């Protein structure tokens, strides 16, 4: 066993601790460098996990897996973290002296995600999950003087704790039946009995909550709206991808489809999620809530790939999760820039953005259209993989539902575009985002377009990562 396999995890943990200490030690004026330190630390983590990509090894008797699948998600989380830090720095600076811990919690949440994706055992997975969600509880309630934020934090804490309990109960039942918590060994020790069915259902419910699948989605919009916007962005992208990483690993390895028929259950969940998420998004007037419902729907699409459970479907899950980082964070980065400037996230604030800042408006449009699955942007290719998988697995009806609803989603995405391009605003001062936001925006735009036009590299990467199954 080589400890160097854990280099990214160790580096991220150290970074989190370093940020805590730096926040205490640095004089008030020097704290401007916190963002830079976080950024550099994450870049190192990114390089470390990129270097480790392709290695396959089980550490601690299979408790922790250093494999391509985990590495793919590690890259994804760290990229998401980097983009959030870049695009959110102007916003985080406004938090004043509490900005230090903010970075630190962000990094710990990231560590939790990484552990979730690489956990080879259910308890480790649970620890990663708790590390991530507890950091998010704090981050959600970070605007202490803002009622919405505090309410969101409390809601998230209560509902999150219940769902964790449900998940844990499911895990314990599975353990009771199989006698092991190591994911790869469970399948061999399972026999069909009511406790096992209950265990699977509880685990599905637990994960469904984290993924905000209908009908476990109620928490998401309020929390997305109340949380500080960089947190919302990270929550929407990172937390969801982490839950998917764990969900897919557990269900594909421990409860393989041919043996346990969970496909149809998830297919129904996916269909409900896609339909409800998109329909409710149609009437939203706040961009954060709109993106919250849209991200509920997006989780539904990703779930389609898992329902299919075949090569194209699983590749689609990874592919989509990655492009979702760029497209969704691009949209959030624009929303962050607008909120920093106007203090509002209602669609009203986006009116005439096409004149106030053509770049922001263009990037917002491109990112939203990518989420809607309009070619030649990344989202289209992602959906193509997901629904090829679904049709290949015989879920033709699901493909109909998914593709029809994704065309419906164009309506509310275009409503934002309409506000930006033909709305009129009393305040016509140009919006000039700071350099780091601009960098993040350009990265998101470039990735969204490039992945869409030339998907081969990302699809090869996803192909390597799913060799596990």
């Amino acid at each position: 066993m080589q400890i160097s396999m854990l280099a990214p995890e160790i580096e991220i943990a150290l970074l989190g601790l370093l940020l805590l200490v730096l926040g205490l030690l640095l004089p008030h004026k020097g704290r401007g460098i916190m963002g830079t330190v976080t950024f550099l630390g994450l870049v190192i983590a990114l390089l470390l996990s990129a270097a480790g990509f392709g290695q396959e090894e089980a550490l601690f008797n299979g408790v922790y897996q250093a494999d391509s699948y985990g590495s793919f998600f590690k890259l994804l989380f760290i990229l998401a973290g980097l983009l959030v830090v870049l695009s959110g720095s102007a916003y985080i600076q406004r938090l004043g002296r509490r900005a230090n811990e903010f970075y630190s919690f962000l990094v710990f949440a990231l560590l939790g995600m990484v552990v979730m994706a690489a956990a080879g055992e259910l308890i480790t997975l649970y620890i990663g999950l708790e590390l991530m969600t507890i950091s998010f509880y704090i981050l959600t309630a970070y605007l202490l003087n803002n009622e919405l934020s505090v309410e969101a934090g409390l809601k998230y804490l209560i509902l999150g704790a219940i769902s964790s309990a449900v998940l844990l109960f499911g895990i314990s039942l599975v353990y009771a039946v199989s006698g092991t918590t190591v994911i790869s060994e469970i399948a061999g020790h399972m026999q069909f009995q009511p406790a096992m069915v209950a265990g699977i259902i509880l685990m599905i419910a637990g994960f469904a909550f984290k993924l905000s699948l209908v009908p476990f989605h109620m928490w998401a919009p309020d929390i997305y709206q109340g949380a500080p916007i960089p947190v919302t962005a990270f929550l929407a992208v990172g937390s969801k991808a982490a839950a998917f990483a764990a969900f897919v690993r557990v269900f594909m390895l421990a409860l393989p489809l041919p043996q346990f028929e969970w496909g149809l259950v998830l297919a129904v969940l996916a269909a409900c999620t896609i339909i409800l998420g998109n329909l409710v998004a149609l009437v939203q007037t706040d961009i954060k809530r709109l993106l919250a419902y849209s991200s509920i729907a997006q989780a539904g699409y990703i779930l389609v790939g898992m329902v299919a459970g075949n090569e194209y479907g699983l590749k689609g899950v990874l592919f989509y999760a990655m492009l979702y980082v760029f497209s969704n964070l691009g949209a959030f980065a624009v929303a962050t820039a607008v909120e920093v400037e106007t203090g509002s996230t209602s669609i009203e604030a986006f009116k005439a953005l096409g004149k106030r800042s053509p770049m922001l408006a263009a990037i917002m449009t491109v990112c939203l259209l990518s989420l809607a699955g309009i070619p030649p942007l990344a989202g289209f290719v992602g959906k193509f993989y997901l629904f090829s998988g679904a049709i290949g697995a015989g879920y033709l009806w699901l493909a109909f539902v998914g593709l029809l609803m994704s065309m419906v989603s164009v309506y509310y995405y275009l409503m934002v575009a309409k506000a930006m391009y033909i709305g009129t605003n009393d305040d016509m001062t140009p919006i000039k985002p700071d350099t780091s936001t601009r960098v993040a925006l350009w990265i998101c735009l470039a990735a969204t377009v490039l992945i869409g036009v030339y998907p081969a590299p990302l699809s090869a990467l996803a192909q390597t990562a799913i060799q596990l199954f």
Partner: protein
Amino acid sequence: MNWPILSLTLFMPLIGAIIIMTLHREREQAIKYVAAGATLVSLILSLVVAIGYDRSLGGIQFVESIPWTADLGVTYALGVDGISIPLLLLTTLIGFSAVYASWNISERVKEFFSLLLILITGVMGTFLTTDLFIFFLFYEVVVIPIYLMVIMWGSSKRVTKEYAGMKLTIYLLIGSAFLLVGLIALFVQSMAVNGAPSMDLMTLAQTEFSQSFQVFVFALMAFGFGTLLSMFPFHAWSPDGYAGAPTAVSMIHAGVLKKIGGYGLIRIGIMILPAGAQVIAPIIAVLALGNVIYAAFICLSQKDLKYIVGYSSVSHMGYVLIGIAALNLVSINGAVIMMFAHGVMAALFFAMIGNLYEKSHTRNVDDFGGLAHQMPRLATGFMIAGLASLGLPGMVNFIGEFTIFVGAFSSFKVLTIIAVSGIIFTALYILRTLGNVLFGPRKEKWDHLQDLKGPEMVPLLVLGAAIIIGGIMPFTLMDLINNGVGSLISQAGLMQIGGIL
């Protein structure tokens, strides 16, 4: 041919759009010249392709092929044959004219011309590619620029431009959702049959699909492409959309974009799914009759010039659909040439209406009268478009309609006879409209209107020339089309009937 002439033709407008994006927004003249230059180069290159195409050899020529995404079987593959060349020419002709028809745009010039050029590239790409995935990619690329152009530069008359734009977008997207399901099903099924992923149209055409699968997928395509081609009863987006859209968008939409529907039905539907086509075709033929007759009746009661042309284009698409549905060499030949003919005609019509509306701020037929006194050149444009529309011999539209009816008669006797009556209604509403707008006593209140001059003449000259040359020398296009359709039909193994015109 060593240099990638098709890629150059295709991406020239896009390059123009990128150049425009780098120009300062105040330099409006420069932006317009770049747009005109890019589309002109594209037009010339497409003429080179049309002339350079070796008719004795036939088949797909000027092939370019670069592997793109292996696991989806996608290849960046371009190539043209006798069916795509006329439509390529149509695109570049209308694209070039559309730039000049928008010469007087003064608001957000930079955004307008970059979106317009992206739109032209998107439309052209669908006709040039021989890869199903790339086809769909280009097809959907066009929808969003159109929405943005309608809401930013459109006009609100009977319906608001926001309504028109959204209606158009949602109709087309819903149609394309069904199309996409069909396309993915085709991809998955062909992978199961062939053992390897492929999106190449030729490979898919040689794959043996079961009849029930073909019927299912063809039905989805008929719905998707039918919506795009404004097949009755999915046509409602078309008149409202054209009425709300700015002139250039109406021109491109009615002129070329709709034709992607017909092209897709022929190229993807009939070629890949011949057995499915044979089952669904009679249904399409009956619906097409709805287009021809129902839309013509609506035209009779319209007052707004754009609505008249909008519904008349729905009506004319009925002929194209009947031609496609008859599934024989002559009728499909007719459908292709009709698509070309209707394209140039509709674009010319919309260019003239746009010009008139810009100057008079009304499109109501009753407001006009005797315009031929003040605007003789504009009246000429209206007359050419109008007479082409009613299928006067000597215009290219006559060739199209005649060929379609000759071909379709052998497949659907009664339907064809009813459809021919559409010509009478067309003559009725077109002649009445032209008479009310152009002729009669001079009206003083329009004395201030300036006739076409300078750049405004370009659409009239280019499109008018295409209509008349195509009408007098139909063999220029007909040989080409016959060549392409012939090989497609032998490919699809359909019953071959008769020679050509």
